[in-house]
């Protein structure tokens, strides 16, 4: 409890200092938090259309792209991870593809998918699949030898082997990958909206900047921060529940 107080006090203190400085300096680039909150209230709550036409589709694309990348990444990763031969064929290619900055492919996707939601999904999927895929490969490789042998002896069916043995063994690593790619999805969602469309949080940010409306711009930035924080916290809660059977991992203590 004291720790909770400690950390939120500092947070509140910083916001208060910002508020004071914002008032004193009266700089249009740095509006005080109260002005930002007021702008956010006016923008998204008083005009719900803005919220439903921009914020909701953005979040949908983010989650959709992330879910798609997770499904593809986990299934491909488990397959590749259980076969050394397949990994030898695919390894160097994966290393190269992973290094490509996904925004560089936005022009290609724009032409291929003729803009719109599918282009944004493609950008998100291409950008966030690598952490999931590579972590699943690692996870699938780390299955305990005893478990492998036991399953072989009992000749359990193929689907049980994958879902009942490999997937649980790989799940801590998979979750680590999922978390990285969730925060990456947020980045790529913004990027794909800065170019591709006229709706979404990213395009609203750009528009606010073009209209020199810095208070709204800050509101957008704060919204993205809140969104990132919320998504990460939600995934952590899920992870804690799903992995409750695991001995408490060290990673969790920092999370």
């Amino acid at each position, binding site marked *: 409890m004291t*720790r909770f107080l*400690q*950390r*939120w*006090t*500092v*947070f509140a203190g*910083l916001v208060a200092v910002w508020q004071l400085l914002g008032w004193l300096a009266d700089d249009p*680039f740095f509006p005080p938090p109260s002005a930002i909150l007021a702008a956010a209230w006016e923008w998204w709550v008083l005009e719900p259309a803005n919220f439903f036409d921009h914020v909701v589709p953005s979040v949908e694309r983010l989650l959709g792209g992330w879910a798609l990348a997770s499904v593809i990444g986990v299934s491909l990763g488990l397959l590749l991870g259980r076969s050394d*031969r397949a990994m*030898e*064929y*695919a*390894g*160097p*290619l994966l*290393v*190269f*593809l*992973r*290094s*490509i*900055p*996904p*925004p*560089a*492919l*936005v*022009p*290609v996707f*724009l*032409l*291929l998918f*003729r803009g719109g939601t599918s282009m944004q999904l493609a950008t998100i999927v291409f950008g966030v699949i690598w952490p999931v895929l590579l972590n699943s490969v690692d996870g699938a490789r780390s299955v305990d030898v005893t478990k492998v042998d036991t399953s072989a002896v009992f000749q359990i069916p193929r689907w049980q082997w994958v879902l009942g043995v490999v997937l649980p063994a790989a799940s801590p690593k998979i979750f680590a990958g999922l978390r990285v790619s969730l*925060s990456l999805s*947020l*980045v790529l969602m*913004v*990027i794909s909206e*800065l*170019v591709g469309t006229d709706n979404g949080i*990213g395009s609203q*940010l*750009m528009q*606010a*900047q073009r209209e020199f409306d*810095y208070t709204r*711009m*800050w509101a*957008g*930035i704060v919204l*993205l*921060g809140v*969104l*990132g*924080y919320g*998504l*990460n916290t939600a995934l952590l809660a899920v992870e804690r529940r799903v992995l409750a059977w695991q001995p408490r991992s*060290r990673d969790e203590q*920092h999370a």
Partner: protein
Amino acid sequence: MRAFTRGLLGIAGFLALWELLGRSPLLPADSLPPPSVVFGELVTQLTSPSFLSHVVATVLAVLIAIVIAVAIAVPSGLVLGSVPAVRHATRAVIEFLRPIPSVALIPLALVMLGFGPETKITLAVYAALWPILFNTIYALDELDPLLVDTARVFGTGRFGVLFRVALPSALPFVLTGIRLAATTALIVMVSVELMAGSQIGLGYFIMEGRSGPGRMDQVLVGTVVAGAIGVLLNSGLERVRRRWVAW
């Protein structure tokens, strides 16, 4: 060696698939130039001084960003990792700042810093800070208490422990953080160049290829070169880690 051949085969298979797709009538014409065209263009571009200056500009900016990020993140990580009070106090602030995507800050940075290289370097530093900072903190957590106690018994002071015991044992983690940060910095750099209309850099080259007549082959040349830089950065830093931190 056989693994190496298989890797090459994998890449060859991918290129063949791309060639087929690029030439097939399924896709709109010129939207995906096949690799044979792209590699021809790559050779032409690699001999052109203007393309090389774009590449150099991006690579230099990435390196500067990494150096600045290390200079900020490693000392802060040491403080946060060794003084629990500071760490708990700043945790909410850090947890809130970290998820703000650096690209969301593009409009802000453009307004404050203009269209010069400062903007892209600042944004890349912001993105590169986090992996280094967190890896430094984690590394201090993993520090073997036995080592610390031993050093203490021999009369080493708090700072002595920090620099002679904690830092060396944290170094491998820190280097891994730097490797992750380098890839992130490259991605942010290219995106900022691509979107914020800088005057030079790989991202700008891609942007130019996209606009006007739409030279998709040039877009892909830029993309391939950016990927190659990423691979080189990554494997270079991995090699550094293996050589220097072999203990």
